[in-house]
């Protein structure tokens, strides 16, 4: 510490380095009122995202506009509190939905896509249709047909396993609202599962995470998803043994759930 003192910098300059809440200032030892109110507002927004009513009909009609005939199913979770308390109910279809899907299942298909509310219906409302727009053209380039499109209410990630197995899909892509954070209440995740069947674990899926305006953009996300679909179908596997080598950017954004076994619970 013997070199001359560098020019002064404000603690607020630290905010250029990180999205974290640094340089908030203090009153005595406590947080200033402005920082406290911003935190409280962000928490309210995240809570609203968790508890927003899922507008499944709007998603179905958005998919129809893109030329995809979609149907509507529900898990066994009857309401939001049920859904939050009992993840097992969100991983199983109710009996009407099982019958509906069985009646629609024709011959086996390459790919079925499911849109589920998950822990942030807000994220699905904001991003699902726009992501689809990019994804449809990416999949067309890879010559992969979407056999079925399903919109699922009260859905956990593993609900896609049962849907895919009833429909006889070789691969499932599940688009689902991710657990909201204070700075990202509207982040969408895509989970890819080869050979979907009831009882698979998250180690057997790939995930493209953080799809939102200021996160991973629609085109980038669609590129990665389409790459993983193509490679998953060709190698007949998803999960830990399928690493993202799409070259679409930093690999940290594409993770398998197994890399964080104790810190996810979609």
């Amino acid at each position: 510490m013997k070199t001359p003192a560098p020019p002064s910098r404000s603690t607020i300059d630290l905010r250029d380095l990180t999205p974290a809440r640094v340089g908030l200032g203090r009153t005595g030892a406590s947080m200033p009122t402005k920082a406290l109110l911003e935190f409280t507002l962000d928490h309210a927004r995240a809570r609203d995202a968790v508890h927003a009513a899922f507008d499944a009909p709007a998603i179905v009609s958005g998919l129809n506009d893109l030329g995809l005939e979609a149907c509507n199913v529900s898990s066994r979770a009857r309401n939001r509190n049920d859904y939050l308390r009992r993840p097992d109910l969100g991983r199983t279809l109710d009996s009407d939905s099982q019958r509906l899907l069985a009646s629609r299942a024709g011959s086996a298909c390459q790919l079925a896509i499911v849109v589920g509310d998950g822990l942030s219906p807000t994220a699905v409302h904001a991003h699902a249709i726009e992501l689809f727009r990019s994804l449809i053209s990416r999949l067309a380039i890879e010559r992969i047909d979407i056999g079925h499109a399903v919109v699922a209410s009260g859905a956990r990630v593993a609900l896609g396993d049962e849907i895919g197995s009833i429909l006889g899909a070789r691969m499932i892509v599940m688009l689902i609202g991710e657990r909201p954070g204070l700075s990202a209440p509207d982040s969408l995740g895509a989970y890819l599962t080869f050979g979907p069947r009831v009882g698979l674990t998250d180690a057997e899926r790939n995930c493209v995470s953080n799809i939102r305006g200021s996160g991973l953009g629609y085109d980038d996300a669609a590129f990665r998803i389409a790459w993983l679909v193509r490679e998953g179908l060709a190698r007949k596997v998803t999960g830990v043994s399928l690493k993202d080598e799409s070259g679409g950017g930093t690999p940290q954004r594409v993770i398998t759930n197994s890399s964080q076994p104790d810190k996810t619970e979609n």
Partner: protein
Amino acid sequence: MSDDPAVIGGLLRLLDEIIMRLQIPTQSCVLAHVTTTLGLIEQGMPVDLVFQSIAGTQAANRSFGIDLATLRQAHQAGLSLRRGSVGNNVMYFETGQGSALSANAHHGVDQQTCEARAYAVARAFDPLLVNSVVGFIGPEYLYDGKQIIRAGLEDHFCGKLLGLPLGVDVCYTNHAEADQDDMDNLLTLLAAAGVTFIMGVPGADDVMLNYQSTSFHDALYVRDLFGLKRAPEFDDWLFRAGLADADFRLAGNTGLLPDFAVRLLV
């Protein structure tokens, strides 16, 4: 979020350099799977503390990719670096009620008992820190503020009974029925009960894992309220760095970064 050894190794070197250059009386720890850290120790990386999440049943530990033999190996590897100056506690463990249930590895045993068994695992390896990440797991295990507070106090009690240096990540997710007021309550109760440590996260918002914990401001509050002192050598460093006054309270609030921090930015 990456478990890439090269990334973790780079962070370990960076933190070691900061600690050495500024002569901060502290240790660093970069959270990664214990097998990743073992590999880094073999490469001679500066590992002060070996991290691992642990649970209270063999099957749950297996779902974390560990067993007692792995932990023993990691403990010995950590000691072999001889980096301890005032002690030889080289392990940092994280736990939390519900992890055995979440891994379907609880054998019908309640989550508090499973958690206490995790502390017995920790105790065998002479840890520096055991951290109960109490509200992280989500509402299917601890539904609301009241349950999180109860579980935090139970964990603290069991940690004391087993003679562990147990602290609590006083925290909650946005899909739990809890808010920062509940965390203020739990923080204050734990401080009154003599908790070993709490976490410091900028503005209480963990922007990577999307949950809320306790802030640096909270730590100052609880020290003020209970007259809790820092470790003497750390207090001394704060004074020499210009962050604290001779009476150990925070130095004047100029809104400017201290010189040593500005040098790190350049």
